[in-house]
């Protein structure tokens, strides 16, 4: 009986230590836009759609990021992105807009996009699986000549 209780406590302590290591976890949803057809939905990770073969892969740091539109360059839409960042336990810090922005950029980089435009955020609160959940949306675009 005492062994059982001690074992359970050890398990809880172990889980606590493991969870304490990861402050947040996240998920992403990418709605690919294909030319001449309706949208298709894919769960991340997603392969870059028809990128030029010689193009070097983008990193998140290369992605232009704005809450507005880009009006001085022509572009095509690659995908509508939606990401959610969750905190692991009630004791961790709430997810921030910066974390959501970084995740959006990462998803855009996977698509080899040039920018994420029209970015918008939700508000931190209790989610279905987390005590602190924050989501963000944006449109991944690629400039055309």
């Amino acid at each position, binding site marked *: 009986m005492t062994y059982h209780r001690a074992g359970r406590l050890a398990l809880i302590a172990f889980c606590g230590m493991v969870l304490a290591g990861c402050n947040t976890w996240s998920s992403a949803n990418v709605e690919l836009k294909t030319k001449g057809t309706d949208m298709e939905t894919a769960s991340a990770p997603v392969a870059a759609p028809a990128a030029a073969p010689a193009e070097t892969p983008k990193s998140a740091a290369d992605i232009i990021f704005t*809450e*507005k*539109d880009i009006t001085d360059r022509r572009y095509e839409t690659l995908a*509508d992105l939606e990401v959610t960042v969750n905190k692991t336990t009630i004791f961790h810090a709430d997810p921030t807009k910066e974390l959501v922005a970084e995740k959006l950029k990462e998803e855009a980089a996977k698509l080899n996009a040039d920018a994420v435009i029209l970015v*918008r955020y*939700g*508000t931190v609160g*209790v989610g279905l699986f987390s005590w602190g*959940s924050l989501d963000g949306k944006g449109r991944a675009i690629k400039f055309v000549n």
Partner: protein
Amino acid sequence: MEKAVRSSSSISVCLVALAIAVGGCARNAPALPPELGNDEAAIAKAMVAVPQTIKQMSCKQINLEIENLAQHDSYLEEKIQANRGKNQFAGYIAGVLFLPAIFAVDNDDGTKSMLDENQLRRDHLVIAYRAKECPAEN
């Protein structure tokens, strides 16, 4: 008898979980506006929904209005954030110790709908900005 007690306790656990989920819950990011790209017909179609007051604005006024909305958003977000600690504490107490503590949770519904209204206005401003072919602001 034991079975009945067990089932009633699992119902209460579910109710508490539901109450916590509803109280102080996250607000989702508003949906993205329709895709405009460089299609003039799509821009004209989107402009139909834009209020007349925005249509009459100059590019400079639109930019100023977008900045004002950003400031108002920050104020509203701070207001929600200020309640966050209290909400989490009340939710935790309600879930673990004392169910009526759930009534102390403030969902900030009014503030959240103001944020949604701001985003809708911002989307209208962005459409007008594109329709007027305003210069890029970078």
